[in-house]
């Protein structure tokens, strides 16, 4: 029982960590592309690289990036709920 739980926790942690980093890289890439397109649309006097650099720095500090921690939270909550509802709820 304890060993099984430890094994599940280990596998889940590895899989979710991969997902966590993939999601972060993907979202960052989308944000950078959007910033590039914004600059390329014209009307911004700032240097292109400086504009993107500043935009990315603001993005890294935003609340949205912190939401990626839900990758760990949601499965834990779902599994806990499943254990309760599948075993102890009538």
């Amino acid at each position, binding site marked *: 029982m304890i060993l*099984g739980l430890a*094994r599940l926790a280990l596998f889940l942690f590895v899989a979710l960590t991969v997902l966590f980093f993939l999601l972060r890289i*993907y979202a960052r890439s989308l944000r950078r592309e959007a910033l590039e397109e914004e600059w390329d649309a014209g009307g911004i006097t700032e240097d292109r690289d400086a504009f993107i650099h500043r935009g990315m720095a603001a993005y890294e500090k935003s609340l949205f990036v912190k939401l990626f921690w839900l990758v760990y939270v949601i499965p834990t909550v779902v*599994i806990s709920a499943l*254990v309760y509802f*599948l075993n102890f709820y009538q």
Partner: protein
Amino acid sequence: MLRKLKWIMLTLLALILGLFLHYNLPQTDIVRIVGTSFRGMDLGWENQWAFSAPESGSNTANAASRDILFIDTVTPSGRPSVFRNEDTAWGWPPYFKFNSFDLQAAAGNLASTAEAPKWVAITHYGWRIQFLTIFPNAIKVRQVESPDVTIIPWGSIIILTVLALLAFLFWRMWAQFHERTIEPAMIEVEEALDAVDARADAAKAQARGTWGRFTAWLGTWRAKPRK
């Protein structure tokens, strides 16, 4: 040929994925419970994969030779349908079932005779294969009004939706990676190759020299295409 091979591989992959989902996703049958029992089983390499580990918390030393709980049922059309009733605990498939003994009591409580049938919706996963003596694993039992009630498979709907969303997400991730990382790298490689090509052409032109003139002279002895 290669195209055919690709299709064969894709079909095989789809088939394996389909079988995997069909084995692991929950299904609900409506049955009449005849009785519950436990039987000592000596599992072999052929059927052990379709049984769980011993009940959660138990010693796992004799996993292949132990008592296993069964729920014997009959379908509304009168066909027998036997379910095993085992914990999946924290393992695969992720049903997190620890209550097999409670389920056994609940199933026993719902047992009925053919004369006064109680219809029971039994949720399970897995296959019954007589050749291998393997059984689907019951997850949940509940009484229903009649054998023809409609059951909406919410569990499968939710799981398949989540899987589809994940597949879509990975596809978009790959597309983004391809567009932003692979394509620029390919263009760079192409430009580098073009530069190498141009240099090679220049070198070839320079290296023509004596040998080049000799092979050109040999070429003049080749048959001309007829008019």
